[in-house]
Each structure stands twice: as structure tokens, then as C-alpha cells.
């Protein structure tokens, strides 16, 4: 039981990282029905920016985090402008391939810039272990869960209460109708990319601190799992992405607890397939009836 509680804490920290990335997938998907495969690479660039800021410029953790978010934000907007906007009127599959092109480009670029090897993250602050009752929580985990919770809350408030947030929801519901009501669709799509990307950047820096490892191909697997998390929660739904991310994180950690760590990657996807078979639109997704 003690072990289980401990694993729950670990799973929560890992799940927060997945949830942050999944939010970007789900937001972009909700608005333009595009799976942005370059997303994992934005996360990776965020991690590297944090690493460079912390290692070369010796900044503190807040600057590293904000720097990672800023660069990812710029990168996200740039990707939207270069690789997605010209393709808005063509088929979704060509847009998908275009994002795959971006993904290959970015990971190769990082290999050329920083080499293919895994790099350690400098210690930004002393890691302490707190014992609460029967289980322990490290300060890294507190920071990760805290930052993730804060960002998710901020996102929720932004989407629910601001004018831009309302415009985003309107665009997700019906792009043409929203356009007719005076919503600047181009700007809303760019904003969505920007917000999602900055969240991925934050996740990258947090993951770098937590795992103490950053490398150019780290984005692929993390991206796939976060995408799985977004689908698990019901793609297009923001609370669904948070829930899905936490579930995937917990599952991964629990699979290690039951001595199936070799199968931990399979676990997440296996559960995903099972959930989809029972409820094809994901846990919190809405079923859309299709008509001819």
C-alpha cells in the first residue's frame, strides 16, 4: 500500500508532463482537426533552450522555464506560418505530412547543433526529499506538479473567461460561423499554436530537470504518448487531455510496480486501444453524429 501511494506520486509527476504536452495536441486538434506531429520536437526544443540557458548562462529555474516557453512559442507560431497556413485549404493528410516534415527537420537540426548524445541537465536547485506520512515526495516532483497545475489552471481561466478564449471556443465549434461573427480566424489559430507550444516548451524544461537527460530524439516518444493521452481523454477536450495525461503517466509507473517495466510503452497504448473500443470518442470526448 505504501508502495502504491509512492508510485501514485511518481505517476502524478510524470503524468503532469504528458498532460502539458497533450493540451497542445488537443487544442490544435479541437480548432483545425490537425495532428501536429512536430509537437514532440517543440517540446524537445523547449528542453534544449532550458538546458542552454541553465548551463551556459547560469540562469535560475524561472528564467530557464520562461525562456523555454518563449522559444517554443515562437517556434510554434513559425511552424504554423510556414508549414500549416499554406495548407489550410488542402486535405488534412497533406497538412499532417507537412508537420512530419517539420518534425524530421527540427530533430535533425538539433542533432547538427548539439550532437546526437544525451546531455545532463545542470542542477538548478538542490533536490530535497520530504516525507509526508508514509510516502516521500521530492522537491522536483512538487515543482513539476505545481507548475503543471498552475499552467493548466491559467489555461482553463483563459479559455473560459477571456475574449480570445471565447473566440477560440467559437472557432472550435464552427470555424465559418465564427468567422462571420467577426472572429479573426487566422489570429485565433496562431494563438492556439502559440499557447499549445509554450505549454510543450514548459513540459520540456520540466522533463529535462526531472529526468536529468535531454537529447534530440526525446520528442518522438513523448509526443506519441502525449498524443495517446489526448485521444484517451477525448481529443478536442481540454479537461480530457489533462485527465488522459495523468492516466498515461500513472499507468506507466504502475506497470513498473507490477514488474512489467519492459512492457511499459505497450501498456499505455494497450489501455488506449481498449478504451477506444469501449468508448470510441475517448473518455470526455463528445460523440458527433455524422450525416450524409
Amino acid at each position: 500500500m505504501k508502495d502504491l501511494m509512492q508510485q501514485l506520486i511518481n505517476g502524478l509527476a510524470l503524468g503532469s508532463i504528458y498532460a502539458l504536452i497533450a493540451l497542445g495536441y488537443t487544442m490544435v486538434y479541437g480548432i483545425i482537426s490537425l495532428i501536429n506531429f512536430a509537437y514532440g520536437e517543440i517540446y524537445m526544443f523547449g528542453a534544449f533552450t532550458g538546458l542552454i540557458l541553465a548551463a551556459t548562462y547560469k540562469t535560475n529555474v524561472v528564467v530557464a522555464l520562461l525562456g523555454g516557453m518563449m522559444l517554443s512559442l515562437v517556434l510554434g507560431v513559425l511552424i504554423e506560418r510556414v508549414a500549416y497556413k499554406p495548407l489550410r485549404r488542402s486535405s488534412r493528410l497533406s497538412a499532417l505530412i507537412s508537420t512530419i516534415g517539420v518534425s524530421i527537420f527540427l530533430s535533425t537540426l538539433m542533432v547538427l547543433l548539439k550532437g546526437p548524445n544525451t546531455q545532463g541537465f545542470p542542477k538548478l536547485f538542490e533536490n530535497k526529499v520530504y516525507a509526508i506520512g508514509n510516502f516521500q515526495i521530492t522537491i522536483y516532483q512538487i515543482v513539476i506538479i505545481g507548475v503543471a497545475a498552475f499552467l493548466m489552471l491559467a489555461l482553463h481561466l483563459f479559455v473560459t473567461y477571456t475574449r480570445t478564449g471565447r473566440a477560440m471556443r467559437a472557432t472550435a465549434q464552427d470555424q465559418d460561423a465564427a468567422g462571420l461573427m467577426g472572429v479573426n480566424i487566422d489570429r485565433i489559430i496562431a494563438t492556439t499554436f502559440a499557447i499549445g507550444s509554450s505549454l510543450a516548451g514548459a513540459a520540456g524544461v520540466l522533463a529535462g530537470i526531472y529526468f536529468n537527460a535531454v537529447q534530440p530524439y526525446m520528442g518522438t516518444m513523448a509526443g506519441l504518448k502525449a498524443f495517446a493521452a489526448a485521444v484517451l481523454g477525448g481529443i478536442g477536450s481540454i479537461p480530457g487531455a489533462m485527465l488522459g495525461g495523468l492516466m498515461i503517466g500513472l499507468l506507466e509507473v504502475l506497470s513498473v510496480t507490477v514488474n512489467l517495466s519492459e512492457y511499459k510503452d505497450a501498456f499505455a497504448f494497450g489501455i488506449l486501444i481498449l478504451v477506444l473500443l469501449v468508448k470510441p470518442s475517448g473518455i470526455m470526448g463528445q460523440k458527433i453524429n455524422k450525416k450524409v
Partner: protein
Amino acid sequence: MRNIKNNWLVQVIGFVLVLIMTGLTAQGLSRIMPPYYLQIGFFIGINVIMALGLNLIAGATGQLSLGHSAFMSIGAYASAIATVTLHLPFPVGILLGGLAACLFGIVIGFPTLRLSGDYLAIATLGFAEIVRVIFTNMQITGGAIGFLGIKNLTTFPVIMILTVAMIAVMMWLENSRNGRAMLAVREDEIAAESVGVNITWYKIQAFAIGSFCAGVGGALFAHTTTFIQPTDFGFMKSIEFLNMVVLGGLGSIPGTIIGSVVLTTAPEFLRFMANYRMLVYGLLLIIMMIFRPHGLLGGFNFRQAISRALFLGRRIRQGAKV
């Protein structure tokens, strides 16, 4: 003329003759071509077979599958076990590889094809990851180290004959009743269902045939490289095949062939750029999609173009102004 063309015996004899000619030509080419080019020829053949399978699933039937490499790995491992562990002859190995992949295609397709669009995409992606993890942890496949000691049994004529046969079968399928039903499923599932097309049946059929192709491709791949490991069949491999299909023109058989040839040879042409190779490859994908979003040959109908050209010739001869 029309009667002779539609006679099945004539078609079968023609098919066999084409295969024999392909085999002889390939035999001749493999004598005179330098090994490096021959090797590229091997991979072009394998990739055409793989991409045609995916084209049937994603292009003709419209079911986006991101797990094509999983079926390739099943075919590769099954055939490797057949020839190395069970000492079966190579043709039996190829057949077993194809059948194993086909079986898994049906087993996986049955539940997942109820899903549509991106949900199907992520389910197939998940399936591919699960297959990869299982192969990494299995004893008989050599685990993460890989399957060693596969004999180099693939020859250029074998690959070329299978490629041409696959192309012929796909072209025949495209114009058959089944092929048209698949197209109907792609265009509009609900409309197809309402005119009596059993959409699940045709989806599974496409999945089974497509996986069979992937299994055959995998078997050929295993006996060309003589060494396979689970990481050979990762997510990026599936994406590679999807790129071939989309680059050429989704749903177009000539397009798929051209896409496979271009994307198999492109990394070789770009070899002089060394480390910048994949950078350019990524850029090329983006540029291609922006300027030819429907692929190189998307929306281009070969038969129509040829018949139009012929027709034009006749009309000019008859004195029509063009």
C-alpha cells in the same frame, strides 16, 4: 478486340508472360548492374510492395493507418523463423510472412476498424508500438539484440517478379467490384452503406490485403538485410511508407510507385550532403505538400490521359481543329 481483352484466359496468359519477361530482364540487369545500384533496386521493389499495400488501406479505402511497419515486422520475423528456425524453403517463408501479417491485420482490423479517422490512426499507431515492444521482449525473435543468421536468399528477379505481380493485382483490384466498393467507402461511408455496401467487410478486406503486402515486403526485407531488429520497424518507418503514398498521390497506383521510387532514391541522391541529408528531406516534404498538396500525380488519371491522347490523335487525323 474488346472480347479478347476481357477473356480471363488471355488475361492470365498475359500476366504470366509479363512475369516471365520481368524475371528474365531482372536476371539480365542483376548481371550487369553495379552492386550499389542493385541494392537500391532491391529496396525500391520492397518499398513499392509496402507502399501499394498501404495505398490500398489509406488511399483506396481511406483508412489512415500509422502502423504499417508493424505488419512488415510480423512478416519479417515470421519468414525469418520459417527459414532459419524451421528450415523451410524461402518461397514458403515469404508466403508464411504474408499470411501471418494478413492474419494479424484481420484480428486487429476487426475491432479497430469501427473507429474512424484519427482514432483509427492512433489505434494502429498504438498497435505498432505494442508489436515492437513484444518483439523486443520475445525469446524466439532474439529480443532487442535482433534476429541473427538470416540467409541472404532474396534475388533481384524474385523481388521484381513479386513487385510486378503486386502492381498487376492492385490494378486489377482497383477496377473490380471490390475495388469500387472500397472507393465508395473512402468517398462517403454513410452513403456507401445506404446503397448496400458492407463497409466493415470491405475495410477488413483492404486491411487484410494491405497487411499481406506488408508481410511479403517484410519477408523480402529480412532476407535482403539478413539481420532484423525491432527498432527497424519503428514509428518513423510507418511514416516513411505513408510519405511515399501521399507524395505520389493518395489512391493512385502509378503515383504510389513513383512516390516509392523517389523517396527510396532521394536519400541516396542527397548522400553528398552527409549530415544535412535528413534536414533537406524534411524540407522537401514540407515544400512538396505546399506546392503539390495532392501528391505528384494526385487527381491525375493515367488511363483517361492515355485514352484522351489517343482520341486526340484520331480526331486530328479526321481533320478536327485542336
